[in-house]
């Protein structure tokens, strides 16, 4: 029985019914990885440990919710004794001595971490073209980008290699690749999932989240990933509901906000059309659309491109060739050690963001840029707070278009930055948001974004699930002859 394109639910049932053993499931997963090596979705595989764990599961029954489920882990999470690179040359030899809380949570639920997925270097990018380990290909077309920075995780799920993967989202790095690869991805409320062990890019924006084939599977993953962690003081101490319990509840009477300031004429024609059709579908499910205004939303991308580089320029200072990671050959003196190690270890996009970050924090520019951006961020958050007085959720397209060709964004970094136009606001405000497949454009999948109020993941998943049980966009898979 093929395991490709199966959901967590499917695989759990297969394991329970003994249609497949844990060991066979892992072996089949590695076969799929091998037959899809052209995707370049994985940086490091964990075959020996995975088989060992599977054998143990075959011997001793284990009742965790993810027992025996192979999960691909984004290479941004520290995994004890398993190389963690962040898609960078700087960490090409880094073996963490500890595991991230989210990894521990998932493994305690019984999952098998089959490998670390490729990603844009240090999570900076929207196309998975900046990894030291090579580009990731979109399973829908090998010349297409999968999106980023969680490109490897998205590709692994979209190709049906794994039922689910972990991703991280700072400006859209879960939702945008989910949209471009035709899968479901969720970024929870800031603080839902512990950042302990998650290599920091922009501390006030980063969040981990699940990427899977269905909203239901995302809910199953989310149940295990969330925890209040005392090792992370930005971790929320709020009750964690069972995210799977209300999925099928009707959404009749639900008020969905449409953002006035998002002029949908900025989208490709077909994308706008797909969006309109999704609106109609939701109306048929009983939802009501309300126009809302987010007056400062057009400043989200500039705000993000001040705040995120500022935080990352500081977070990445620890990569200095002194304590871990790569070091340049024969440093002549301390300055040489720092400058060559960092210049050789980081790629161009990372360097660019560090430079911008240092600039906006420097004396003389701090008030005009960093402080200003944090004030605008407050305004953007206030806009959302106001909007959520009128609506239950906000709906936007996830991206302006479907997957683009590798290299097509050219040399201008700003072109790439505008990819995250719709996704960035939720990160700035710390709000939960997800993307589900809602159509096809020129044979390529496209996604729909739902943004929720603080702690409203259950509602988002419910709205997504209702869509998925009455449509089949999420069931589409790339045909074999594409590759």
């Amino acid at each position, binding site marked *: 029985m093929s395991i490709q394109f199966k959901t967590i639910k499917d695989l759990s049932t297969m394991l329970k019914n003994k249609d497949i053993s844990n060991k066979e499931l892992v072996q089949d997963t590695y076969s799929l990885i091998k037959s899809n090596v052209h995707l370049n979705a994985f940086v490091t595989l964990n075959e020996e440990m995975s088989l060992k764990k599977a054998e143990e599961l075959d011997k001793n029954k284990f009742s965790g919710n993810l027992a025996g489920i192979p999960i691909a882990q984004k290479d941004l*999470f*520290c995994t004890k004794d398993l190389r*963690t690179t*962040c898609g960078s040359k700087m*960490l090409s030899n*880094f073996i*963490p*001595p*500890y595991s*991230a809380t989210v990894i521990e949570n998932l493994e305690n639920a019984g999952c098998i971490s089959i490998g670390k997925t490729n990603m844009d270097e240090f999570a900076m990018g929207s196309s998975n073209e900046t990894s030291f380990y090579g580009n990731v290909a979109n399973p829908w077309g090998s010349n297409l980008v999968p999106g980023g920075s969680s490109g490897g995780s998205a590709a692994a799920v979209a190709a049906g290699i794994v039922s689910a993967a972990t991703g991280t989202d700072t400006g859209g790095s879960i939702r945008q690749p989910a949209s471009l690869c035709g899968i479901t991805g969720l970024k929870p409320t800031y603080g839902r999932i512990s*950042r*302990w*062990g*998650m*290599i*920091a890019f*922009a*501390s*006030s924006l980063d969040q981990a989240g699940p990427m899977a084939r269905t909203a239901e599977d995302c809910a199953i993953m989310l149940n295990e990933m969330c925890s209040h962690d*005392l*090792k*992370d*003081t*930005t971790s929320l101490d709020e009750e964690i509901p069972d995210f799977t319990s209300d999925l099928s509840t009707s959404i009749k009477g639900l008020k969905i906000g449409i953002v006035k300031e998002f002029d949908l004429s900025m989208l490709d024609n077909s994308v706008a059309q797909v969006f309109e059709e999704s609106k109609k579908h939701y109306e048929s499910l009983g939802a009501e659309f309300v126009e809302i205004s987010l007056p400062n939303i057009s400043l989200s991308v500039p705000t993000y491109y001040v705040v995120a580089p*500022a*935080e990352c*320029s*500081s977070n*990445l*200072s*620890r*990569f*200095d060739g*002194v*304590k*871990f990671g790569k070091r340049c050959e024969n440093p002549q003196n*301390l300055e040489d050690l*720092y400058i060559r190690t960092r210049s050789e270890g980081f790629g161009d996009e990372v360097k660019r963001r560090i430079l911008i970050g*240092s600039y906006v*924090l*420097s*004396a003389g520019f*701090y008030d005009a840029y*960093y402080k200003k951006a944090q004030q605008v961020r407050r305004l953007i958050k206030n806009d959302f707070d106001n909007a959520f007085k009128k609506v239950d959720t906000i709906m936007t397209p996830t991206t302006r278009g479907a997957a683009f060709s590798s290299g097509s964004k050219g040399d201008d970094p700003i072109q790439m930055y505008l990819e995250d136009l719709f996704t960035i606001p939720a990160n700035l405000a710390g709000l939960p948001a997800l993307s589900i497949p809602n159509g096809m454009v020129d044979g390529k999948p496209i996604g729909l974004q739902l943004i929720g109020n603080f702690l409203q993941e259950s509602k988002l998943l419910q709205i997504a699930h209702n869509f998925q049980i009455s449509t089949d966009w999420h069931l589409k898979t790339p045909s074999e002859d594409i590759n």
Partner: protein
Amino acid sequence: MSWETVIGLEIHVQLSTESKLFSGGSTGFGAEPNTHVDLIDMGLPGVLPVANKDAFYKAIRFGLATNAEINQTSSFDRKNYFYPDLPKGYQITQMGMPIVGKGSLKIMVEDQEKIINITRAHLEEDAGKSIHDLFEGETGVDLNRAGTPLLEIVSEPEISNAKEAVAYFKAVKQLVTFLDICDGIMAQGSMRCDVNISMKKAEDKELGTRAEIKNLNSFKFIEKAINFEIERQIRVIESGESVVQETRLYDSIKNETRSMRSKEEANDYRYFPCPDLLPVVITDEELNEIKENLPELPGQKEKRYISEANLDESEAKIISSSKTMANMFEDACSKTNDSKLVANWLVGDISALLNKDNIDIEDSKLTSNNFATLIERISDKTISGKIGKSVLEEIWESGNDVDNIIKEKGLVQIQDESILENIANKIINDNPGQVEAYRGGKDKLFGFFVGQVMKETQGKANPQSVNEILRKLLD
């Protein structure tokens, strides 16, 4: 045409918490390199800081004792720069919202009282240590100290000379040791200071350009460094040049300050709020509890020693001025119930030894236990006071245990009256001439007999008994 010196001190006090400011790493001194390092202290990718509540409590004690504003909500900022012993490439400190605001401290400079205002006191993490001289061509980095909580106390630039600077530093040392927030052991780096100094003419309204002398860790060096720098700056200005705003180090061997040969001037620290640490709030309840449990300060101890322990003012002042000495006093008193005896030793012989060696009592080899035992042995007459002095000198050199010294040197006092009487009789019989002269009225000769008995007993005779016996036999 007179010069005025303007000095401000930034004193870094290592808080005596068990664990570090943001991690559970131990703050214990003297451990093998890199053995007190936690994942967080290493700055490994993915780690996050969690603030140590006790560091806040200790900082607040300082604030309360200096009548300062306490900012019950305070937050942390990042100071970004690169150095091998700064693992994260930034130091977590408090720029915008420090825990303690404006306060003041009274100091005594040559019997004159002066108030020094304190701008602020904030929490920050210490860096590790770079060891430059151990390895050929390389510098070794030990991160044991990285993450240790520091309280940085910033004074207003109100200090006008080296003596005042030292007096202020000493006053801060006294305060933090009495508050039980720092052990004050300078030799272990528990306190260090940076001095900001500029010169101006009396008639100038504006301050001169200041230079910063970093990392001074003894009273002596503070005084010398300041005096050198004053002369240097005057020379520079009088020669027509300007003082450069820069960081300097004090070379104690050459007795000069030198400019730090780094691109310090290009160093923009790019301070910004640390996004990993949300603001910390100290509740009113916590604040009140700290207020109510503030340790006794020198002034309070002094009063109590006078009223309860019957000390006179000068004794009480001396003993209450040092936390270590005060602890020793109280400890020994509780074991011997003879506060006057204890005080005499501290104010007399021990203070003399401290002065001779120019050290503070916590830097000596005398421990509280050993001192208390010494007093007990004198009090119970195991040894005489005179023998006690030589025992003290032995402890001072070797740190050896009192009872061991007494045993090894056979110093137990001779108290047996029959033995002493025999010896006294022998002396009297051997010296008939002196006996006659004494009985004839030369009272001073009594001392001769006492001396002879003591000589015969190698100083071990109980002097009081000797006196009584001789009086009995001679008179």
